[in-house]
């Protein structure tokens, strides 16, 4: 691994961890302002996180190490995700490329650790959240793979960094139907994977409507702190990926300090804008009934499939 790629990974991790709670804060504030409230401010998620890490976690009898390990595994998978996805720079990590399937698998490691945590609690709600979460993950898989596949056909490779670089080099390709369909399908994927409306309501208190929240009902203190940060990091990584695929300018092509600085600024701006738009959209939509979600995901699959077919048949 060259010093350049080492620096890039470090920048990715530091930026991701620092920016993520801020992004959540921006999203909550946008939502609050649209609802006529003041909100807690953009730094509240940071305050919540620091407080959580300073609280004691608990352990009920009969628990297995999954209770302690799942939050750590989720955090690790989210951090590796942020390291691999071209957030700030497209410098190729020669030995650990940001390859499509590797990135998806790392995402799935986090998904599985959450699901196992839900089952571990031994309560009805945990199992319910786990079941719903895995069904949604299973149904979103085809769309994930097909939409990035569609984006990889023009670039000739499944390496995400190379795809972003190819899109920077050929701006016209951003507007063709293949691209637009694939990005749209990816947006639905991000919403489903990160548990936002209309697939899941992140702020619900009704257990029967929960998907993500239900799996973490039993975790408190720093366990919960890691779980929250890990889930937020997934949102950052996926939103960053969509942003850099849709609007690839600003991504650093190398590891020079100036381009990295520009890259950091660019990804921060893109994340904030995309997050704000997502939060604003959430004000206008209600959560879908759980058994309507497969219809939504099937629809996004059709879009992704059309996108792939178009990439072969038309272009």
């Amino acid at each position, binding site marked *: 691994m060259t010093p350049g790629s080492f620096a890039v990974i470090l920048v990715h991790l530091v930026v991701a961890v620092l920016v993520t709670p801020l992004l959540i804060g921006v999203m909550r504030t946008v939502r609050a302002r649209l609802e006529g409230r003041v909100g807690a401010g953009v730094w509240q998620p940071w305050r919540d996180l620091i407080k959580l890490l300073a609280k004691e*976690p608990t352990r009920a009898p009969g628990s297995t190490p*999954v209770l302690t390990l799942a939050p750590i595994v989720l955090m690790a998978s989210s951090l590796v995700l942020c390291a*691999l996805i071209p957030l700030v720079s497209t410098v190729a990590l020669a*030995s650990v490329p940001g390859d499509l399937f590797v990135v998806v698998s790392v995402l799935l490691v986090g998904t599985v650790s959450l699901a196992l945590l839900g089952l*571990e609690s031994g309560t009805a709600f945990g*199992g319910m959240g786990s079941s719903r979460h895995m069904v949604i993950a*299973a149904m979103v898989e085809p769309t994930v793979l097909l939409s990035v596949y569609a984006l990889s056909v023009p670039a000739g490779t*499944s390496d995400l960094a190379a795809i972003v670089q190819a899109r920077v080099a050929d701006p016209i390709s951003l507007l063709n139907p293949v691209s637009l369909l694939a990005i749209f399908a990816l947006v639905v994927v991000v919403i489903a994977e990160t548990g936002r409306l209309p697939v899941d309501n992140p702020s619900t208190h009704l257990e029967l409507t929960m998907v993500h929240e239900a799996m973490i009902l039993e975790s408190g203190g720093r366990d919960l702190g890691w779980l929250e940060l890990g889930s937020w990091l997934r949102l950052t990584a996926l939103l960053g990926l969509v942003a850099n695929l849709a609007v690839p300018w600003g991504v650093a092509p190398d590891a020079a300090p100036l381009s990295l600085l520009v890259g950091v600024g660019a990804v921060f701006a893109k994340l904030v804008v995309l997050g704000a738009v997502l939060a604003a959209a959430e004000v206008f939509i209600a959560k879908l009934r759980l058994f309507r979600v497969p219809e939504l995901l099937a629809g996004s699959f059709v879009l992704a499939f059309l996108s792939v077919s178009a990439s072969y048949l038309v272009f």
Partner: protein
Amino acid sequence: MSALLAPTLMDAGLLAQLAVGGLAVVAAVLAPPRARNLAAGGALVATGLAGAVTGVAALLGVEAGGVPVPVALPLTAPLDALVLAPDALGGLFMALAGVVVALAALFGIGYAHGAAASRTGWTAFAVFAVGLQLVPAAADAISFLLAWELMALGSTVLLLADHAARGPVRRATLWYAVMTHLSFLLLLAGFGVLVAAGGSTSFAAMRTAGVAGPAADLAFVLMVTGFATKAGLVPVHVWLPRAHPEAPSHMSAAMSAAMVKMGVYGMLLLTLRLLPAGPRWWALVLVALGAVSALYGILQASVQADLKRLLAYSTTENIGLITTAVGVGLLLRDSGQSAVADVALVAALLLAVSHAAFKSVLFLGAGSVLHATGTRDLDLLGGLAARMPWTSGAFGVGALGAAALPVTSGFVAEWVLLQGLIHVDARTDRLLAIVIPVTMGIVALTIGLGLLTFVKAYGIGFLARPRTSAAADAREAGVAMRTAMVAGAVLVVGLGLVPGPLSQALAAAVAATGVASVNGAGLAVGAAAAVLDPVALTALAAAVLVPLVAVNVVLARRHPRREVALAWGCGGERTSPRMEYNATSYSEPVVRVFRASLQARRAVDVVHPDSAPMIVEHMSFTQETADVVESRLYLPATRALARAGDLARRVQNGSIHRYIGISFAALVLVLVVVAL
């Protein structure tokens, strides 16, 4: 030097397998009951290891340029001789079979009890193991079929082991016996066509004869159906979910991890060695069969509550994926994209090897659970991770491999398959432009459902709290069983950490180029040189974990974990483990979403006390997810067959005049035909 050593090593290995296998039979028959497990099992472990060594020598020996010297064992007339000469492909499957047999036999030393530990039980397993290991070594049709039949015979007998204790065993064996002999007949017919067209029974002669046209098509259809039956592809898979659960667990592991691979070996033998220049529609048939099996298999697996039935359906799914990869590889070879075709074929072999590894661990784990709790119903298990840590750990690793998560061999195999699909150039070929995205979508859906299935299998069975006293009283397995499971788990992860050398070895089996080893153990495929380096990925994950764990440890010292009395279940007092989600409820959303394909039948029975019709005294919910293919295809077919039989019986009215009349008519017909 290796070219000189390799042929003799192979011959010695083949003879060793036969000899030690025979020793195992002798041990099974002569050893006293207490020592029988150890003696017969030990001999079979040695047989398996001999097979593994021979197979690896065959696989690598050809890489070094050596020529296999056939081992010919004389048989009684009318059969000529048993000719054994494994090539690289055969060597790979022999090694696979050998390792699985060794693991299963080691497990069986600790596990076999009751009828499975009797003389018949161990003899049957020995016969099965020898047949299994010799199928890939066969160099002509007769030897192939002989070894095939030995395999079938041994497995049928051992399947019957528990028949006195449990009713479903007999039905399962009946289905299995009928279908395996159906496959035998189809193979016999197919080989017959090839022998008639080619003139000789040896595979080399069939290849040089270059059979083509309608004869080749007929042989293909017959033999693919026969191999598909053994491999467990839809719609001829119906014996699999019945037979694998009912067999003793070490046998289930061998059947699921190795025996079904012989069906795959057969298909590869047919399409790559015997009839290499087949038309396009052959590849499409394989892709279609594989895709349907993969999807149907994992769908059924995801809704099963019976652990072993879940694993059996998962085998159908994996074999479906392997067949799809083979089909895609052949399709691409036909389209002229040989580099990508090679990637797809290597992916198929990687899938086969990784499936053998994780499926044996999973079945052995299921056997350990069955042994400890007496049940394989996930709805009655739970909390086993605390009571059976070794089993739980090994099963967890196997589940990781089955779900294709990093850094297991399953992950490597899926990665190579997806790379193969992604790098197809379909811009000029309309057929590929449709087939490849559909295949990718199906593969992706099976990955997703596979994740759900194995999270369910592991989470419901091993996590949470025990749902019954059987689960609460479970105790860890013995040394032999633990060793076998851990060895399998080590294989699952170990093979995943060295994808480069592994793929290069496998590439030799199908004469593939375009896979290379980089960065030590990493893998690079295709012209676009996509790279997978699991070691580097692990290093990245470790680098990320170090500061994370350090921070966590510091926090843990300042804010230690508090033990509480209750899990949070809304503060209620009367919570019990029965309120947890179980396997049936976990997959309820899947049943609902895919209700058209699963056609689950549900019944809710409510019993009221006589005096108070508004009060519920007892309520029960039953869900039955029968195999759709079985109930929609086979049951009507068998009923039609039974009706035809009834009609035919009317001819037999006991009148001797009618019988003589029929015989006379038959004689006249024969004379007429002969005259013509």
